[in-house]
């Protein structure tokens, strides 16, 4: 094991995928977007320039080209950069890639990875801060992957790029790029649909995805000092979803807070809460709480942006509330 920053781990995974399988092809290599860590991805171009094609500003076209290439033997990883740009490509991702297998009754597959940088990034304003995960979860046929750590980013990318037969939306949060964590020395793909308990606890299950995982771990630390033992469960992939691990944790703790940095209405937290309510209701000692973004676009102004961000403090308050503690 060695310590790495998230961007380096993801760049490593992409290099490992390129090295392992000649069918892996990159359409754009802008995996770091405009984040301070963007230079971490230069290694890909230094080593594999001939495996990268830089496209015009044409998301609809190049996402569709990736789907057609994936139908015919390549394994493209597409850099969409900012997640909101995927909206330009919606017809090809939602109405071609996602339905190729189903429409052909399993005969045609499109193993393409759509990589995008999402979330509240600090002054992304109304058009560059979207959470796209819930939207993609509503399009059956797409795998939706949301890593929260360097090891998960690498392991999930390896699985999607090298082994999956299905299209994947790889949702990377802008603010995870600089986070650090331990990463295996050897190539270690992580299977889809396997959640990880990131911290063991007994009183409350905190299901958190993506950027909410480091915030949840921070909240758990604060709450431990108050005598509340929080179990942090990270689904890691939203489609497929590891319901079993989530429900087993709720059965143990009897309380659940679900957290995702997207708007609350029909969001990922809503779906997770519904799963727990439908299949784990009898374990619950208190109503489920959701933590997400209120139903507003993401503003540019720093104070406004922070006001709507599902922060560590909001998680702490939600956990206290389900435990019957006073909320500050």
């Amino acid at each position: 094991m060695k310590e790495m920053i998230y961007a380096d781990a993801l760049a490593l995974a992409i290099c490992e995928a390129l090295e392992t399988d000649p069918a892996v092809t990159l359409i754009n290599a802008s995996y770091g977007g405009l984040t301070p860590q963007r230079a971490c991805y230069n290694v890909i171009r230094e080593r594999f320039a001939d495996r990268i094609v830089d496209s015009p500003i044409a998301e609809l076209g190049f996402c569709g080209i990736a789907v057609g290439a994936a139908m015919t033997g390549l394994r493209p990883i597409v850099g969409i950069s900012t997640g909101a740009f995927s909206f330009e490509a919606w017809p090809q991702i939602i109405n071609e890639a996602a339905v190729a297998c189903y429409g052909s009754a399993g005969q045609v597959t499109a193993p393409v990875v759509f990589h995008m940088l999402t979330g509240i990034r600090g002054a992304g304003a109304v058009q560059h801060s979207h959470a796209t995960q819930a939207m993609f979860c509503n399009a059956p046929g797409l795998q939706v992957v949301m890593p929260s750590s360097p090891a998960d980013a690498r392991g999930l990318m390896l699985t999607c790029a090298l082994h999956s037969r299905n299209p994947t939306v790889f949702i990377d949060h802008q603010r995870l790029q600089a986070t650090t964590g331990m990463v295996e020395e050897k190539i270690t793909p992580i299977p889809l649909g396997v959640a990880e308990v990131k911290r063991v606890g007994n009183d409350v299950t905190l299901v958190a995805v993506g950027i909410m995982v480091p915030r949840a771990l921070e909240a758990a630390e604060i709450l431990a000092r108050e005598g509340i033992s929080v179990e942090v469960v990270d689904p890691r992939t939203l489609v497929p979803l590891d319901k079993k691990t989530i429900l087993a944790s709720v059965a143990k703790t009897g309380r659940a807070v679900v957290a995702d940095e997207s708007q609350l209405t029909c969001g990922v937290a809503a779906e997770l809460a519904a799963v727990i309510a439908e299949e784990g209701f009898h374990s619950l000692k208190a109503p489920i709480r959701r933590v997400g973004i209120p139903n507003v676009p993401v503003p540019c102004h720093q104070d406004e942006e922070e006001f709507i961000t599902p922060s560590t403090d909001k998680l702490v308050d939600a956990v206290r509330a389900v435990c019957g503690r006073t909320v500050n």
Partner: protein
Amino acid sequence: MSVSAETAIRNLKMMLTIRRAEEKVISFATEHTGLIRGHYHVYIGQEASGVAACNALGPKDYVFTTHRNHGHVIARGGELGRVLAEIIGRSDGYNGGRGGTFHVIAPHLGILQTSGVVGGCMPLAAGAAFSIKTRKTDQVSLVFFGDGSMEEGAFYESINMAALWKLPVVFVCENNGAPLASRKGGEIPSNSLNAKRLIDIPMALGIPSVIVDGADMEACDALMKDVVAGVRSGGGPAFVESRITRWPGNAAAFPVLHGGAWRIDWAFDPGNAPAPLQDWLSHSDPLALYMRDCVARGVVTRADLDRMDAAVVAQVNEAAAFAVASPPRKAESALEHVFA
């Protein structure tokens, strides 16, 4: 210029097969309640460009098409029974009945998607060509679409990248709104696309682009062979506008067979045909024109054509019986194949 008698007869038979199969599809929709539930699109009147394009392709090439795909799949060698079974949602259909009329997909024929979304297949076809170029094979990718697709952004983005990256893709626009007078060339004013000629758009991006009379089987055949060969030899993408005068039965929201099934004697005596068809039969029906041409050249006789038709009709009837007898798709299979 003319092709061998053998080729001409093969072309005639394929065009006739498509026409009779499409008439069967119309009868499924109009005479058999429930066999086709929604709307559907037929290829009658467009047979020449589809048959010609598929003649020019090799077995390993890729074909992408649209909601008006039946003729393309048949021209590509699709088994009639399995095509008709797919159209009516039966388990012997090419997608086990999952796809229906809009989405007859046959991967073993290189037909990987038939998108019901206008413009949906153009990026996919460019993507297959990108894959060909990356894998360094000698395949080509060919995509059929209507003139309406050129109003979509997907078209512009696809032709731009295809041209930039010199992808081996043939864009075949079947413009089925072409008036007789301009079918061989010239300008076609359109109220939905502000270009004097459709080919001006790809030509602006440096893509070799040609207009062909979509009612002229042998002109289509010769042109498609040239175009596909050029693309296969690494020349980058090409664009073909096949100008087609619309079959009068296609004027309504749902296809209408004026006077019933098409008749060979109408081809030779359009004055005896139902009034709405006369002009089309005289000047624009690729099958009528080609039959008259082949008889005039002595390639076939009227009697040969009648025998050919009887054989084709028998084959289509047999295929239809196979399709109708095929078990419907099971309801619970709706949950299958979301993922591979």
